[in-house]
Structures are given as structure tokens and as C-alpha cells.
């Protein structure tokens, strides 16, 4: 049947032509797209931020990355080049970021803010903003407040806005960790006027607002955030905290399947990925299509942890038996594919240096393990569970399976318990898991910091073995005080003391210090390893 007038097809064609001429193209022209690609970084990981503010409630690690890049701190660690050519943060050197200089006194430190420091909305940064931000950090509770406490930053009275551009922090006690603690992500500088505008009586610190809006002075601002899907950053051209970054735009996409992330990297459709399984990193390194950079995670280790409060592992000889039963080398090969530093097979458990982390003297020796089992008085064997965080299953599962096999030879029957997602925190808090495979790494790279969280009597959530010992606490406190007063001899003695105690009583058996690996396309340079293990976009360049 023929219609009168224009056929539908003709009508659509002409409409499209007319529409095309009028409507702005939704995609840039190929030339513009190519240029834009060069200034844009595409990052793919398994999870994205659930909150753009590290001081928010329950912010996840990707959220830390957003805070790091969008906010400034007063000072920042300098960058150094490691022997193998990779870049890393320098634990021992601090540089000005938002402050232009700092004067460290006996019981205080004074900062002068940079003259032209401006927030992303154009308002100047003042000392009032800094004080407000610090007050916020120590008052909101949760993780940020505890992190501040680790550097003896606890009371708002310590923070003084001397004048428009001068800010002073008073110490409550001498603590070596105070200065480095000022450079971690938590004491970010917020645009207090902007955030206060959105504060309410129920939410005096504006946490709701900063959850989805960045109100900082950092090098990047979040242009769009679709939780669980994509975060898009744009460069803040007025950034004074350092050299202006080269990347104008960073797009961060959540791709849940690790196989697909690897496929994207190998086909060149993504620029950076850093949470792939070690196996993929090892294989991609060999294949050579993408650049793989691996750095040992500072102050971090995977360990087998046992609850020392409840049977059966309240028995020290049993714990030592387990320490000798662990198939260390097999575990390193199967879980990390060589991308780790062993923390076993050292000279002696009576350590002779304050280096951290350092290997224990345990090795895989089933005969010794069986003998210790007899001494422990559990010769007939027992049964228990091995728990680990499902979110870290790629590494923990092979460890658990190999551990299960070895313990089976000792007569210890185990079932493997994979604990999903955020339940892991709950389970850790309950302190009821008998045997776990776990990972911990401390931001501040000092042994007393690790021990403060993982072994001290305050029984923090990270002290999963529920280990409490007066002697240990004395040594940890001693070390902290010695560090504060610069007494190296006492410091070394106490550190060696608590490490030895930890290795002999072995509530936790160190396995290895893992590497943090990053896969980038060959034209990407400037990747720097940071203690927080997240990506710093400011130094990255795309050729």
C-alpha cells in the first residue's frame, strides 16, 4: 500500500538532518576526542568510593583516594626514587603543601599558609578553615578521630588560628608520630564556610554535604559521582599545593569482574588498574604488553592469626606448632606468585635489630610441629574453622586451603569460612574467630605504630588475637616515648623486645609482606607509591 506524501523513511531522514543541524553533538568530533583522550586518565577498579570524605562515616578505601586528590593537607611527604627506579613517598621527609613553611618548636609547630591558596570555589584559604577542619577531625569520631589520636592530636584546644595565615598546633606530649600524622589523609583542609552553609543541627560538621561534594583546595574536584558506577574528576587549575598536574580529567569506572579489568588493560582500553590478582600481575609482567610496577607495602603483612583468649589457641605450644606447620613457600607461590617478601625463615625469633617488618625464624617443619602438638597436650587432634575476608579472597583463599591441608596432617581438622564484605569488620569486632588469615598495614611506617594497633592491651579491633600483655604494653609505650625524646638506644631495645615477644608467643604468625602492584599502559609515567596504597593522580603523566 503506497502512502500519500512522504514515506515514513523519508520523513525520518529529513527530521534527522534537521535535528542534527540544530542539536549539539553528544560526542566530540574524532579529533577533539583524541586530544581529550591524551589529557584524560581512565582508571578501572573493582570498587569505587562510597563517600568522598575520609572524615565521613564508614568511608571505604576508594573514598580515601577521592579525599587525597581533592583536598590538601598542611604538609605532605616528599617523593623519593627507590633503587629499582620506581617512585615512592619518603617517610622521613616532609614538604609544605598548603603551608609554605613550618617552624617546629619544642611543644608546638607553627605553619604559615601559602599566600595565594584558594579553595575550588575561589574563596581564599585561611587559618580559620584549617582550625575548623582539625576540630572536625578530632570530633567526628570513628576512624578519623582514632587516626588523629595515633599522632597525639586529640583536643580542639591544641589547634590555634593565630591570624589569617598562621596556624599553630600545640602538642599534649612529645610524640614522634605527630608530624607524620599531619601529612596523612585525615587532616584535610575543608572550605569551612561552604560546608557550614550545609550543616544542620543534627549534622553540625556537614558530613552529609561532603559525602557527595568536594569542598577543598586540592588539585582535583569531583565533577560527577555515580556511586558504584563512575567518578569523574576535573583539574582545579588554581591549585597551589604543588606543580600543576598534567591530567585534566580522571575517569574512575567500577568494573566488578577482574578478568574483564585485565582484558581492558591488555587491549589498551583502560589506562590504570591496581587491584588485580597477583597472578595477573605476574603474568602481565612476563607478557610485557603493559607496564607493571610493584612496591612492597610499607608496614604491612599477611599473617595467620589465632585467638589467644579462647581454646584451643590459648595454648602457646599449639600456636607454635601451627607456626611450624604452615607451608610458607607454597603459600607465597600460590597466593602471591613471587610478588612478596617472605617473613619466615629468619635467623632467630630473638631478633637482633629494630627493622620492621622482619622475618620470624619459623619454617615449614612438620616433625617439629607434631612434637610441639604433643607437648601442647592436644595429641589427638582437634577441629576448628579458618576465617577470612571474602573481599580479599583472591589472596586469602589459596592461603586458607594450603593451611587447611597442612593442619590436616597435624590432626587439626578445619572448615573454611569465607566471610563476606562488611561482615568481616563485625566478626573482627566480636573477637570470636579462632583462626584467621588476615592482612594489616599501618599508614605510619614505624613498628611501634603497628604494634600499637595490633598487639597492645587497648584491644583495638585490629588486635584480632585479643592479645593482652603488660610486658608488651610497657615495651610499646617505652618505644613511643623513646622515639619522642630521640633516645635511640632505648628505642631499639624496646622494639627488639616487643618483636621478640610477639614472635615467641606467636599470637600471629607473619607470612609475607605483599607488594602493591599497578598495571599501566606504557605511555603512563609518574606513578608514585603512597602509604595509603591509593592512587595519586597529581604526579601521573600521559605521554
Amino acid at each position, binding site marked *: 500500500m503506497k502512502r500519500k506524501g512522504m514515506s515514513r523513511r523519508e520523513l525520518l531522514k529529513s*527530521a*534527522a538532518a534537521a*535535528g*542534527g543541524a540544530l*542539536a549539539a*553533538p*553528544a*560526542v*566530540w568530533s574524532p579529533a577533539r*576526542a583524541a586530544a*581529550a*583522550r591524551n589529557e*584524560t586518565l*581512565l582508571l*578501572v577498579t573493582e570498587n569505587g568510593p*562510597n*563517600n568522598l570524605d575520609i572524615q*565521613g*562515616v*564508614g568511608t*571505604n578505601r576508594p573514598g580515601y583516594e577521592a579525599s587525597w586528590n581533592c583536598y590538601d593537607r598542611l604538609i605532605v611527604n616528599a617523593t623519593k626514587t627507590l633503587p629499582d627506579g620506581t617512585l615512592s613517598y619518603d617517610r622521613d621527609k616532609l614538604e609544605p603543601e598548603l603551608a609554605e613553611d613550618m617552624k617546629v618548636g619544642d611543644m608546638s609547630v607553627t605553619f604559615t599558609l601559602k599566600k595565594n591558596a584558594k579553595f575550588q570555589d575561589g574563596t581564599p584559604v585561611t587559618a580559620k578553615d584549617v582550625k575548623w577542619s582539625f576540630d572536625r577531625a578530632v570530633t567526628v*569520631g*570513628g*576512624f578519623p*578521630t*582514632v587516626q588523629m589520636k595515633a599522632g597525639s592530636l586529640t583536643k580542639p584546644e591544641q589547634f590555634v588560628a593565630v591570624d589569617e595565615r598562621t596556624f599553630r598546633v600545640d602538642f599534649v606530649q612529645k610524640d614522634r608520630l605527630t608530624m607524620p600524622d599531619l601529612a596523612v589523609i585525615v587532616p584535610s583542609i575543608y572550605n569551612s564556610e561552604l560546608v557550614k552553609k550545609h550543616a544542620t543541627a543534627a549534622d553540625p560538621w556537614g558530613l552529609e554535604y561532603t*559525602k*557527595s561534594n568536594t569542598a577543598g583546595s586540592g588539585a582535583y574536584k569531583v565533577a560527577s559521582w*555515580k*556511586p*558504584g*558506577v*563512575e567518578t569523574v574528576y576535573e583539574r582545579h587549575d588554581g591549585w597551589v599545593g604543588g606543580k600543576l598536574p598534567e591530567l585534566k580529567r580522571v*575517569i574512575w*569506572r*567500577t*568494573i*566488578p*569482574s577482574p*578478568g*574483564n579489568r585485565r*582484558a*581492558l588493560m*591488555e*587491549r589498551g*582500553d*583502560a589506562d590504570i588498574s591496581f587491584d588485580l590478582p597477583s597472578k595477573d600481575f605476574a603474568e602481565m609482567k612476563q607478557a610485557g604488553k603493559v607496564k607493571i610496577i610493584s612496591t612492597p607495602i610499607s608496614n604491612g603483612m599477611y599473617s595467620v592469626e589465632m585467638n589467644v583468649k579462647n581454646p584451643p589457641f590459648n595454648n602457646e605450644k599449639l600456636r607454635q606448632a601451627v607456626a611450624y606447620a604452615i607451608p610458607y613457600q607454597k603459600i607465597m607461590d600460590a597466593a602471591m606468585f613471587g610478588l612478596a617478601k617472605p617473613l619466615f625463615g629468619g635467623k632467630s625469633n630473638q631478633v637482633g635489630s629494630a627493622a620492621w617488618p622482619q622475618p620470624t625464624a619459623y619454617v615449614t617443619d612438620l616433625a617439629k610441629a607434631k612434637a610441639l602438638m604433643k607437648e601442647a597436650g592436644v595429641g589427638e587432634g582437634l577441629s576448628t574453622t579458618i576465617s577470612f575476608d*571474602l573481599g580479599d579472597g583472591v589472596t586469602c583463599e589459596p592461603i586458607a586451603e594450603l593451611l587447611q591441608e597442612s593442619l590436616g596432617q597435624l590432626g587439626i581438622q578445619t572448615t573454611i569460612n569465607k566471610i*563476606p*564484605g*562488611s*561482615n568481616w*569488620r*563485625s566478626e573482627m*569486632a566480636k573477637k570470636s574467630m579462632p583462626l584467621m588469615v588476615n592482612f594489616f598495614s599501618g599508614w605510619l611506617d614505624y613498628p611501634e605504630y603497628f604494634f600499637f594497633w595490633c598487639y597492645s592491651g587497648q584491644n*583495638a*579491633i*585490629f588486635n584480632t588475637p585479643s592479645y593482652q600483655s603488660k610486658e608488651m604494653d610497657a615495651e610499646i609505650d617505652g618505644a613511643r616515648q623513646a622515639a619522642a625524646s630521640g633516645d635511640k638506644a632505648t628505642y631499639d631495645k624496646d622494639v627488639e623486645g616487643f618483636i621478640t615477644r610477639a614472635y615467641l608467643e606467636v599470637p600471629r604468625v607473619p607470612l609475607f609482606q605483599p607488594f602493591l602492584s599497578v598495571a599501566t599502559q606504557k605511555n603512563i609515567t609518574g606513578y608514585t607509591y603512597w602509604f595509603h596504597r591509593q592512587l595519586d593522580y597529581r604526579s601521573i603523566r600521559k605521554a
Partner: protein
Amino acid sequence: MLAKIGRRMLTVIPTIIGVVIVTFLLTRVLPGDPAIYFAGPAATPQSIADIRKSLGLDRPLPVQFVRYVEDLVHGDLGNSLSTGQPVVTELASRLPASAELTLLALAVAMAVAVPLGILAAVRQGSWIDHACRVIATAGVSLPVFFTGLLFVYVFYFLLGWAPAPIGRLDVFYAPPTDYTGFYLIDGLIDLDAETIWAALKQLFLPALTLAVFALAPIARMTRASMLALLTSDFVRTARASGLDNRTVILTYAFRNAMLPVITTLGMVFSFLLGANVLVEKVFAWPGVGSYAVEALIASDFAPVQGFVLTMAILYVVLNLAIDMLYGVIDPRVRLEG
């Protein structure tokens, strides 16, 4: 007709109530404690107890349930723990993504399964019949995530035919103006051919994966109803009156055969919504399925409750619509009803 609708609605209400109760109970039985999650790493038993109180989790279950229902009536599905966003907003923004994918998959599945089913019925017992059965069954015999990953490996990684499994649109495309949330429709309204093409490219693999799964029931149903019809009286009469085979099959048998297929579609659609969950995970599709799965793993109650409730209501409405449609198409049903 109206009375019939009214009566159907009445039977639907107990179902919805049942869903609400079961969802609530199920999420409350999930392991994991939101209070501990909120309390953070420095949690002391006191701070956890305080937070639990502020979240209302220390009240007895019936009280919590009443509060939950009150919120529901006001359209408040709560907030997601992990993203902090209101569940209603997130569901609303993600639903079009899932719906677009499922509908396209359904269309593809029908385009393949219906002709296959008709062919198998017309040539019953021949090798085509057996081949149809084998193909359709094979599609349903593999876990859907495996099919998806296999497709990604073959069509993207090895052959490069499909685009990167990176979501609904490549990073360098801006989504079309948000009229419906369906990129294909919105792109059409905007008359933006490039975006339509980009969205279609991304839709291709996940839709194919889902379609493979839906082939079997549709093909099977088509074949069955065609078979029943081809031996029926009126078709025999049509043939006897001299109408050519083609007309008989397409004009008479097919139209009537479609009725049971439409009913099956309702079941297939809800079945696909379930398979959706895994496909979305594999293809990084920002739909309600992946949203619910992540929330479930993180013991995040509100999104799971919201998702289940929404899907249940959708399913109920869909079935109602299909029943109505059936009544419109088939006068026998109407008369009996």
C-alpha cells in the same frame, strides 16, 4: 471488566504483604551488623550500642517492622549503607538500565526462538526439530555468568568485535538527555545517532548473553502451541479449503499460537530479571541487579529490601497486564472471566 480487575487486585494484595514481611525478616537475619560498620575501626562496645540505638536497631523486631512499613507508605525505602544515597533515587536511576537490557534481550530471544519454534513445529520429527531442541536446551545448560565471560573472551578479547565491557556507554560519550533513562529511546528523542549506536554497541554482548538463556522456554512454548494448533480443526479446515501452507501457518496458526507464548513471556521476563543480576556483574552494567547483589554481600539491608519489593510489584503488575492482554486478545477468556 473493571470488576475483574478489582478482583484480581484483591488477590494481589496478600502477595505483596507476604513479600514485605518475608523481605524484612530475611534482611534482619542476614549476618553483619550495620552498627559496627558505622562505628568504624575504633569501635568500643559503648559507641556501637549508641549507634545501634540511633539507627533504631535496638528496638524489638515488631517495632522495627512497624517503622519500616510506615516509611514504606511514605515512599521512603531508606538509605543505602554503602553509598549513602536514598534507595528510591538509586533504584529509579538504575531501573531503566536493567529494563533496557532485559527488554532488548527478550526481543533478541523472541526474534530467534519464535521462528525456530515454528520451524520445529512445522517440520516435526525432522533433524531441524531435534536441532532446535538441542540448541535451545544448550543455551540454558550453562551458568549465565559463564556464557557472559565466554562471550567477553571471544568477542572482545580475541576478536575485538565487541566493545569493552565497561558499562552502558564508553567513557568518551555523554549520555543522552534523561527523558526515560532508556538510552535508546532518549537517543531517539534527541535524534542523536552516534549515542544510539554507542549505546547499542555496549548493549550487544550482555543482551546476547541474556537472550541465550531465554531461548529455550520461548522456543519450547512456541513449538508446543504451534504443534497443538497445526493439528486443530480450524487449521485443517483452512488447509482443506485450499489456502496455501504459508498463509495457513503465518496468518492463522501463528496468531493463535502466540497467546500462550505471551503468557510465557511474563514468566521469562521475571526469570530474566533474576539472571540479570549475574550478567550485570560480569558486564559492569549499572542496573538494579548489580546494586542488589553488592548490597546483599555488604549486608546492606535497605537496597535489598527496596530491590525485592520493586521487583515483586513489577512482577505482579506485569502478570496482571498480561492477563488483561490475554483477555483482550482471546474473547473466550473474556467471556469465561
